[in-house]
């Protein structure tokens, strides 16, 4: 696989003509957005001013106008950037993925199937609404992989019957084949209890977590500090999580620097990396040529696709009997 610096080179050299064109679009778009938003804001202020002077003022109408303004502004923003975002994904993200591996297929409008998300068992309840985009699927050296941006939400109803939505997971969700053979389920989550409540109370809470399978204590202190493992089978969990793999997961966590959830179920590895934002979207208010912006696209893709490389390396040492 291409290294990070090779990809950065590709971004700045081969994609440079495209990026400069998109830059022009971006500047024009930025102006249009500012003008549109300013007009909308002026209209809102004018309505409020008119209400004040005509003495029909009430909190309800003010709230209504405010709500209308934010909804309209949001819709206007989405409509305005639609073409630009489509262009960006087609002309920048697509070649970038092809450059990493020619066998990967990229579909900007699709996302990973909800079945994978539920089957992973990383989250104990199923979501009420899912969305996502930027679906990548393919085989790298014989190992199939798919991932996408994914957003899962839960619905809540308060006593007045109003519904609200809360995010269960937002970030990168990845599914890949796992070369070892196993029957049960092993789930690896960030260790929040032990880091919040300390070792003693934390581990008590973890071993009494009824929504999960049995707690599996790992014999790698650094891994144990970062993660908590639940599994259906004590031995199988350790068979999957060899010392080598634990080191790799730790290393992956440090590089990605985002909360990492993993699960092994039905011959597959599932990874949910929490970014809490929509990934691979073009930046509107910062230049596409800015190093920090560019690296975010490149690094995320490199990290996601690179995990297969790590698993494949192991495949030669094991044999799926």
């Amino acid at each position, binding site marked *: 696989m291409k290294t990070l610096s090779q990809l950065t080179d590709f971004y700045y050299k081969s994609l440079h003509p495209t990026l400069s064109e998109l830059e022009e679009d971006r500047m024009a778009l930025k102006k249009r957005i500012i003008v549109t938003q300013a007009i909308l804001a002026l209209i809102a202020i004018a309505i409020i001013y008119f209400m004040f002077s005509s003495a029909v003022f009430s909190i309800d109408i003010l709230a209504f106008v405010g709500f209308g303004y934010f909804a309209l502004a949001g819709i206007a923003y989405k409509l305005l950037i639609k073409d630009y975002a489509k262009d960006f994904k087609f002309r920048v993200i697509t070649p970038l993925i092809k450059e990493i591996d020619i066998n990967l297929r990229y579909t900007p409008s699709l996302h990973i199937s909800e079945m994978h998300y539920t089957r992973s068992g990383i989250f104990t309840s199923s979501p009420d609404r899912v969305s996502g985009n930027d679906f990548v699927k393919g085989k790298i050296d014989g190992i199939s992989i798919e991932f996408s941006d994914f957003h899962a939400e839960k619905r809540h109803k308060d006593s007045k019957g109003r519904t609200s939505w809360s995010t269960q997971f937002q970030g990168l969700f990845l599914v890949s084949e796992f070369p070892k053979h196993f029957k049960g389920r092993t789930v690896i989550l960030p260790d929040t209890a032990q880091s919040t409540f300390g070792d003693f109370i934390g581990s008590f809470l973890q071993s009494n977590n009824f929504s999960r399978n049995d707690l599996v204590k790992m014999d790698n202190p650094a891994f144990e500090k970062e993660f908590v493992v639940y599994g259906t089978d004590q*031995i199988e969990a350790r*068979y999957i999580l060899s010392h080598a793999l634990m080191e790799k997961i730790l290393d992956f966590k440090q590089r990605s620097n985002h909360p990492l959830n993993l699960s092994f179920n039905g011959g597959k590895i599932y990874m949910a990396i929490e970014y809490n934002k929509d990934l691979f979207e073009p930046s509107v208010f910062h230049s596409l040529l800015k190093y920090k912006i560019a690296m975010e696209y490149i690094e995320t893709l490199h990290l996601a696709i690179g995990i297969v490389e790590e698993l494949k390396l192991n495949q030669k040492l094991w*044999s799926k*009997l």
Partner: protein
Amino acid sequence: MSTPLIIAIVIAIVLVLMYNSLVSKKNQVENIFASVDTQLKKRYDLIPNLVSSVSKYMEHEKSILEDITKLRSEANKPNISDEQKIALDAKMSSALGSIMIAVENYPDLKANENVMHLQRSLNEIEEQISAARRAYNQAVTDYNNALEQIPTNFMANAMNYQRKEVFEISVNERKNVNVKELFNS
């Protein structure tokens, strides 16, 4: 209800909980040891096949092969204790390890399909055994902790529970495989 009665009930509940947690820890150790044992047996079953297919070629390693056969017959004896099984496993692992390294010196052997298949199967079982050993060690550590920590230690004393031994994890197992080093040697 009178206060002494409440206190007596609370003490009784605490005692029962302590007793149950000790029993479940002991059973967990025994359960996992049974799985370790199954995996070890699987490995012992591969040994006659391994010895017969490599002994034709291996001249210098005759003594190791004899050791392996001897270890296997010892392990197959009835009524050997868990401690003995653990000790036999350590010896077996190191003997098998040196045979696997020695195979590298015989190009004929390395290319032999049967040996290659055996090597893969052994690797796989080695991985399973390693996982089972680690699970066993964790179960034993939990059990031993309960035996020594307050307040369960009083209860364990009364029940006459004894400390259990863990498997020594060999240094090789802890090390990550370094592919570069393999090529350099």
